[in-house]
Structure formats: structure tokens, C-alpha cells
């Protein structure tokens, strides 16, 4: 037991040394009951879901298997925008970037509302009609299924 403890301490020291020599912002690795979480940002502690400023597409809270509700309430007269495939739902092109479209935004028929990423393929989701975003039904980074309602878009009044 004592041997195991000293060996764990050696490992922790090696990782802390590696971290200090590096330009890594955060480390969070776990093996069995031993988890090592190091960060240059103290506010990251104590967290079970670390916020990592990584390249696109990434968000603070990654997916898990939580699925959105399958039946979304579509306001009367609004058009439902459905997911064309299973995948991960992204509301901005890369972490920290502005949302493609937010509640209340006016959008064109071809403008991107979100990306559904599936197996390295980025599906750009557009409303298909000009209008106003009146509903957003999935949170950034969530898994979606084909046919899930992503947005509701109220069509622009005809001229």
C-alpha cells in the first residue's frame, strides 16, 4: 500500500512537471480512482466538466447521451427546422464565436442557423424560408437524431 502511494506520488509529480514545462491550459486525466486535474485558470476548480477552450467544434459541456425532447412546441404559423441526420448540434462555428442565429434574429432562407456534425461531416442547417427565429429547441453540443426539431422560424410576411 505504501509502495502504491509513493508510486502514485511519483506519477503525480511527473505530470505536474510536464504541465509546468508546457503551454497546456488544462489537463484532466483519470485512471481508476486516480484523477489528475491541473489548470492555469483557478476558477476551473472544482469541476466535473472542465471548460476547455479547444478548436472547433467544441463547447464547455460536451454532449453525453442526453437527447433533446422529440416533440417541440412550434408556435402557430411557424416553420419547424428539422435535423437531417443524427449528430452533434453546434450553434456557432467555433468555441467563443457568435451564434449563427439567436432567438428573435431575422434569417434568410439560405443562411446557416446551426451545424449538425456527424462523423466529420458538417451539415449546415438553414431554415429554407426567410423569417424570424421564434424557437430554439436544442442546446449547443447536444446529440440529435434525424427529424428532431431544432428551430422554429416564423415566415416573413409576404410583401
Amino acid at each position, binding site marked *: 500500500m505504501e509502495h502504491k502511494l509513493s508510486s502514485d506520488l511519483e506519477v503525480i509529480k511527473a505530470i505536474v512537471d*510536464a504541465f509546468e514545462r508546457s503551454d497546456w491550459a*488544462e489537463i*484532466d486525466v483519470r485512471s481508476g480512482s486516480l484523477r*489528475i486535474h491541473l489548470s492555469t485558470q483557478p476558477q476551473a476548480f472544482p469541476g466535473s466538466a472542465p471548460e476547455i477552450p479547444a478548436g472547433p467544434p467544441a463547447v464547455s459541456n*460536451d*454532449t453525453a447521451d442526453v437527447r433533446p425532447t422529440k416533440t417541440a412546441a412550434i408556435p402557430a404559423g411557424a416553420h419547424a427546422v428539422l435535423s437531417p441526420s443524427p449528430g452533434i448540434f453546434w450553434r456557432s462555428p467555433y468555441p467563443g464565436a457568435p451564434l449563427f442565429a439567436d432567438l428573435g434574429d431575422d434569417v434568410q432562407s439560405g443562411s446557416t442557423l446551426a451545424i449538425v456534425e456527424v*462523423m*466529420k461531416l458538417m451539415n449546415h442547417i438553414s431554415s429554407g424560408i426567410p423569417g424570424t427565429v421564434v424557437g430554439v429547441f436544442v442546446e449547443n453540443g447536444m446529440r440529435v437524431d434525424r427529424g428532431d426539431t431544432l428551430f422554429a422560424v416564423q415566415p416573413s410576411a409576404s410583401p
Partner: protein
Amino acid sequence: MTAVTQTSTLRRVLVANRGEIAVRIVRACRDEGVEVVVAVSDADQDSLAARLADGIVHIGPPSPTQSYLRVGQIVCAALLARCDAVHPGYGFLSERPALAEACAANGLVFVGPGADVIRRGGDKVAARAAARRAGVPVGAGSDTVETVRAAMDIGADIGFPVLLKAAAGGGGRGMVRVDDPAELATRFAVASSEALSAFGDGRLYVERLVENARHVEVQLLADTYGNIVHLGDRDCSLQRRYQKVLEEAPASALPAALHHRLAEAAVALGRELDYVGAGTVEFLVDLDRDEFVFLEVNTRVQVEHPVTEMVTGVDIVREQLRIAAGSPLSLTQDDVVVSGHSIECRINAESVGSGFAPSPGRVVRWSPPDGPGIRLDTHVFTGYDVPPHYDSLLAKLIVGGTDRDDAIRNLRAALAAFEVDGVDTTIELHQRIVDHPDFQTDNVNTKWLERVLLADPASMSSTTQRDAAARG
């Protein structure tokens, strides 16, 4: 340099990858008597590789940018699991000098060449320069071009169509075709900004587009003692959107003299780069001019390495582990004998009838073929949930035969016996390929799959109908 004994070995390897290649590396470690730990994202903690390994280290959420693509996570996972080496597989961080550097800085062996070789081999402009120094023909074209005007001059010189290629690209990504000088300015801007966002490097170079070409590559193995051997060539001409679909060894369509010239060129380039490890030199063989040009170096194990293993009997991943341990190669060039023929089909989770749309989800039946001459490299099993976060490769079906015709016969039987339910797969695409007379007579080029097979509506309809029926 201290002398290293021939028995040196690694103690425990961290696999910094997932999917079928993680399983492949775990098995090679077992065969070498080396302990093996797999780094897993939250999506992969119950993977086949995780089950087969001696242990796992959790490295973060499913998104590759938060797990498999983070150098710090990989290095610290190796330290936490008390590994002495890291095998990067292919893709992910396998060709990032940063991982090789971080391993070296922390006393870990990187199973692959050093950061410097990765840099010189991986940068396409630097690699072209190295190829020229080694006397290897490179395609008519340029070094880095800064401006549309410069690209236009080169295009006028070598003739359109040309390809604009990302200097930092590779693996079929970062290429834009320009047929007409009038398109050049727009395409140049698109290619440059795509290269910048995909590779963090917007530099471009120009290359003549070879219309009637075969993609042929040579497998190299090189140890730290300066020994370098080639394991013959592979033909990877069947591609869709520059992604390989089916590969063969040897490249039997080439005349014998060309096999030798390609192998010599690959070895010369390997020497020029001071190459160490397993690597591949890719060439484009111009069928109309009966000549070849250097394409790129891949400084890692290739997806299609099994076809070479099947015709040479050499275990490339085990050789990687031995080289990394500081052992000399277990074979000389005279030991390498290519016999028979081997074909690999990449079985992807894609719906061919729906424009190759990815098809993740639960595999409710997984019944692959087996028998003599059949090898399956896969991480899939009945009940496996194919996650949407990663590429669509489910399995590699590798089939051998005494010659190409024999291999095709065996492959046809193997494909017919391969049953998968729950996700769409590309099995039927491979069946259409092997049934086509052009494939059977080895009369294809890199555009054949897209321009002939997939352009033929009669050939498409059966799958579309079957897909529709399957969805019910």
C-alpha cells in the same frame, strides 16, 4: 550513441487512438509481449480496444478537440498509466510534430519518426524539395505561391487544369481543382482560406492535374541504425473525393520496371529524410505518359497497411514497436518477398444511396465473413453503438488470393457473406466494384469510381431501392 541490444523492448504502450486501429495496436502489443493501455474519450470507454487492453485512461469528452486531439491529455495519460511509449495510430495527432516533441520532452518513446522528420515529411512544400534532392520526380508545379498572379503564371506554364494544394494539407484534404484560368482568382481565395481554417496554415502550391492516373504508394520500414527496406507497393486508385475506398497489393497494373523505380525512389526519399519507423511514400502514376511523380509522405501507419502485411507476411505494427524500442529491423530487403495478391475494402457506416450520408447508430447484427484468406480489422460487434463524433470506418475487410483474379473471387464471396443490420454500410458499393468489368480487368484510374461507377444510374439504382426497402 550507446549500443542497444537486439532484445530491447518497450514495457507498456499507450494507444492514443480509437476504432479499429486501436484494436490493431493492442493486438500487436500483445504479440510483442508488451503491456498496453488505451486512452479513451467518454464515447469509447466500453470500446473493443478498451476491453482488450490491460487498462484505460479517460482523456475527456467525445469531441476529438477535447480528447484525442489534445497533446497534453495524451502525454499525461501516458504518464498516469506509467507507460514508456505512445502509439499514435493514424489520423488524430499521428502526424503532429507537437506530440512527438512533447513525448520526447517527457521521457516517452513516440512510436513514429521524430518531430523533425514529421515536419519535413509532412509539409508538402518541404517534402517536394526533399524529393527533388533525392532525385525523385515531383509533379510539374511550384513551391509555395503567394499571389494569384504567381499561381496564374505557373498555371500558364504547366497548363490547366491545375490543383491548388494546401502546403500543410494531406490525406486528400486541402485540394481545389481549377479548370480554367478565369476561375483561378476565386478558387485561390477559397483554397487559401480553407487551408487556413483546416490546417492553421494558408500557404498554397500549384500542381498539374494528372487526369488519367493511378495512386500507388510504397511502404517503408526504417530503423535507428540506418537500415531501410521497402515492402513493395499498393494501388489505392479507387477513391471518392480523394478518400481511398479500396486498396490492393501489389499494384499489379504497373509494368515490372515501374515497381522497381517506385521502390527505389521511395527508399531514396526515406534516406534523404533520415526516416525512422513505418512510413509511406505516395506517388501518382501517369498512365498516359508512363511516368510517375511524388505526391506525399505519410509519417505513420496507413489505414491500408494490412494488404502489404498479407502479401509479405511482415507485421508492420510489430515492426513499428521494435523500431521504437531501438531494435534493428527484423528483416533485410532480401527477406521481403511479395507473393499473391491482397485487396482491402473499407466498410464505412454510410448510406451510398443517399449521397454517402454518414449512418451512425446501433449495430443490431454484425456477422462478418471468415475463412481462409480473409482478415477483418474492426472494432465493431453486435450491439455496438457507432458514435457520431468520429469517422465512419467500421471495418477493413482484407482478402487474399494466389493472384488478383483469385483474390477477387474470394472477395466477392466474402462480401456476399457480410451481414450488417442497424446502420447503412458501403458493402454493396464494394460488391458493385468487384462485379464491374473495368475493375476485374484492372482498367481503372483515380477518377473511375466517381466518373464511371457512381455516375452510372443503372449501377446506383439497386442500392437506392434496397436502402428504401431497408428503411421500410
